[in-house]
């Protein structure tokens, strides 16, 4: 499927901003089943500095600086992405989870150095015994890894209520665990933490999800949102994605933008402003099948 994705972020400041620096990760990356056909990013006012680089995880990052007094700023990223439907691997065919754990126990082969780094704690996702206990229920002895993860994915979906008001970007995972509520970011982090607590590499994926309007209703432009899910590393199959918010394994309706150890590595739009007082951010995302 082809999609045109428009991601618009607009800031309004109460007082003029003298200088602001931003880091954005909005350019969808190429994956085994996704081709980015076009990408353009417009920034208003025009930044004095604009540099694009590839970060440690291979995501495209744009750094830009506005250094003339400004009271508002807008970033519009438009991409055309072609997602090829690739049937998710059959979970039953994966090797038992213990083998994957064994693979990442010392001594670890230099061949799996890349996934290995996703076993460890990161800023927002720390393994803890409580999470290991929660995860263990899904990991019966000698069960294929992906079956375990699929079960975990479903348990997160069922045990946690989707509630956009319950958390903010910086809500710690302990609180999510206690409240049993959150949004995609929280559920993705939760899944990652559970897997890491078991000794398995897991990463955070940021992107978009096509939303379908209710039967007979027109599609609302700009009503979509950023989405996030997680992926587990399976020694024979490589990285396999899971979406705990929707209790499924992503197919052709998930568009990948970036991945990293947690949200902090892939935050779509971030910045530090000097001055500005109170500020207001408006974000709209539109995922249009074309």
């Amino acid at each position: 499927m082809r999609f045109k994705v428009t991601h618009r972020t607009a800031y309004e400041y109460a007082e003029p901003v003298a200088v602001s620096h931003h880091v954005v990760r909005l350019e969808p990356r190429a994956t085994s089943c996704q081709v980015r056909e076009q990408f353009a990013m417009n920034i208003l006012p025009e930044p004095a500095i604009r540099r694009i680089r590839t970060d440690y995880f291979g995501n495209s990052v744009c750094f830009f600086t506005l250094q003339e007094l400004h009271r508002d700023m807008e970033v519009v990223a438009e991409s055309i992405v072609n997602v090829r439907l690739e049937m998710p691997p059959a979970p039953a065919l994966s090797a038992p989870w213990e083998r994957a754990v064994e693979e990442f126990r010392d001594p670890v082969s230099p061949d799996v150095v890349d996934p290995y780094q996703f076993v460890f704690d990161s800023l927002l996702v720390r393994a803890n015994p409580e999470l290991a206990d929660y995860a263990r229920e899904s990991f019966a002895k000698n069960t294929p890894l992906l079956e375990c993860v699929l079960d975990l994915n479903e348990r997160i979906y069922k045990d946690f209520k989707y509630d956009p008001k319950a958390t903010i970007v910086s809500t710690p995972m302990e609180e999510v665990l206690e409240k049993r509520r959150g949004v995609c970011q929280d559920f993705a982090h939760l899944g990652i933490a559970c897997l890491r607590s078991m000794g398995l590499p897991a990463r955070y994926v940021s992107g978009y999800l096509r939303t379908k309007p209710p039967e007979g209703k027109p599609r609302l432009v700009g009503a979509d949102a950023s989405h996030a899910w997680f992926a587990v590393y399976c020694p024979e199959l490589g990285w396999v994605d899971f979406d705990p918010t929707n209790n499924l394994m992503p197919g052709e309706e998930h568009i990948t933008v970036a991945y990293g150890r947690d949200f902090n590595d892939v935050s779509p739009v971030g910045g530090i402003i000097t001055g500005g007082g109170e500020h207001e951010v408006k974000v709209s995302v539109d995922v249009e099948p074309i």
Partner: protein
Amino acid sequence: MSDLLKSNRPTAEPWLLEQYRQSIKGYDELLSPDGTMRPQYTGLIGDLTRLGRFDLKHRYDVARRIVHEQGITYNVYGDNRGMERPWQLDSVPFMISSEEWRGMETALIQRATLINQILGDCYGQQELIRSGWLPPALVFAQPDFLRPCHGVHPPHDTFLHLYAADLARSPDGRWWVISDRTQIPTGAGYALANRLVTSRVLPESFRDCQVQRLAGFFRELQTSLAQLASRRTDNPRVVLLTPGPYNETYFEQGYLARYLGYSMVEGQDLTVRDNRVFLKTLSGLEPVDVILRRVDDDFCDPLELRSDSMLGVPGLAEAFRAGNVAVANSLGSGLLQSPAFMAFLPGLCRHVLGEDLKMPSVATWWCGQKKAEDYVLQNMDRLFIKPAFRSHLKGTNPERGMTDSERAELRRRIAIQPHLFVAQERVQLSTAPVWNGERLEPSPVTLRVYLVATESGYKVMPGGLVRVASGLERRFVTMQKGGSSKDAWVLSEQPVDGVSLLHTVGQEVELRRVGNNLPSRLADNFFWLGRYCERADSSARLLRSALNRFNPESTGSTLPVLMPVLNTLIEQGQLQAPTSETKLTAEALEADLLAAIFDAKRPGSLRGIADHLQRLATMLRDRTSNDVWRVLSELDDRLTLPTTAPVVLAGDAIGVLNQTVLGLAAFNGLARENMTKAQGWRFIDIGLRIERAIYLCTLLRNVLQSDDADNPSVLEAVLEVADSTITYRSRYNLLPHIAAVFDLLILDDTNPRSLIFQLSQLQKHFDRLPFEQQSAQLSPGERLLLECSTRVRLMDPAQLAELESDWGEGEVAQLLTDVLEVLPRISEAIAVSYFAHSRIARAGGVGRRS
């Protein structure tokens, strides 16, 4: 005297070393196992013995005095009042022979070179990981591996510009590295300070022993940092980035900045524009080429590194990656500080440098490897277990053994995340002679050494910082509390060039004339220094005047006379406004006045103001003289009542107030005499003038609002507070008269205490400020000021004489009210034009999350 003492001593065992030998347990730096003195010490010990006990005691006193006078301190965290601890120094130097030093030098250069190459690989190709020489987890699991810095190419491929290592001598006499400092190698400044004090206290020995000098090392550092500049300029700007005055080594940072000639800046003094770093100064932005950082690397950029950092500079990481600014040590250098690396250095050294590691590290087991983990779990009580990476985790307590529950807890944690723990052999330290007040005794020591990267490889500072453990308990290295330090003398085989850099350091003229490039934040600090000094002065005068007139026996009649003074204090928030419930009794008032002086918790109390001053003085330490520093510290000391103080009497308080007023006069004199024409002084004076005008107007308005405005006793008090009694008497041979007093205090431009004088001074300062000179139009601040002084000049005080009461309703009172409204706006206008360090804020942009 010393001859007398000496003659009583048997020559065989000098008095200095009585009981020394009996206390030795392991390797001793002074005596060999057979009791003979090691050759590097003979000259020194001979000198000290000849000096005699009395002289030596005296020299220790001198050392303490120099430390106090130079304000050499070490901040102790979590200790608010008295946070600054005087630096502890034992004047008997630690001696190292030139032969031994040569071997150490070679080994240390090898180690620094190796560490630098490992850093380069981790932040580059990562060959060492792929080829199995470095366990991947050691790098990837570390919070100190800064991924945004991966792929940078710092100038000359140097990641480690300054390196320090802590060394200990094992019982067999070999030196071991017990820790590597790659993040921020602290202490070189303290080593320099120690050298300054020690060489002054023992000048004869310093000369005779042929001690290698430290100055060359710092010159190498200067040269090497200057060469990092990417701009083609003869005069690259290097700044020292400090986390601020609450950092434990803040003194050292200022000391080094002064010594090396660098501006000491905080994160908010810098800004990134056009992908380059600039220093915000009064006259605009000035490019910065090199940052010598004392801020941990992950705190250096809130945009890309730790987002909760308030110490960094947004955009710095990108400017650094672009090669537009050099940072020493490189962002990311903290990675190699993990003790876990020590376990792999021997193999890495053979692989990377093709030679054996010349100086061993303390035996180290990193639990990230299964074999090591098993070994550690089997030897838990014998080893010293600690976090492998920077973290909140706890290891074993170095002071005592583990309880069963502690051991079980640690075992559990290691099992869950073994890679977070490392274990090391407990170190038995060698001992060196330390003066105990009567004679020398052996105490455990470690030696911190410093290296700098130069074009021709690493250079070692010939000396170092010796830290002395408190007490003879020496199974482990603990230096945090109560430890002392020493200078290390590396001897030379040839006579050392007689020109000691340290003499010039000692006599360094620290009063500086600062030019237009004064960083904006410092201008802000100077401004508030001026305001708080004047606030302290005015408050002290008001309080003194109140206490002087206050007499418990005559409350009834004196109180009305005091009311304008008391109301002024109330208006400034220093006294509590009497409510309907609290009757103004003499006792209550007296207690309230004393609280307004001594109670640090009361807002606006004199003591509170003095605390503010002390803080400001700390932040301006590298821009003001030692005398200014001393005057302001003494101010705070005087107002600090000992916790065990008996009841304070009004008479004592008046004494304290008198001294406070004198101290502030000394400050003003020093500021004026020592800082004339510099921007720093200008901002102090602007602050002072504004504050003085505010106090004066408040007092005069309170006089006009009282029913006794024309009462000579009231006016007398006003003249006294405004320090104009003598001037008044010299002009008018009569009792204070309202019109004459107001004329003198408002309009007389020859009276340095008058309102118009303050306004004229402000006008003069405005004319010389950089921005005001650039524009033909009046700035907002200047406009306000001009309007204000014109109105004041047009005022006619004679009308006050015509009124019999209701002075508060007259034009003069109205004018004072208006001036009081304008003054804060002038202050604000200055702040906007010159201090504008707007707060930075995080602008997230996630929007709705599905």
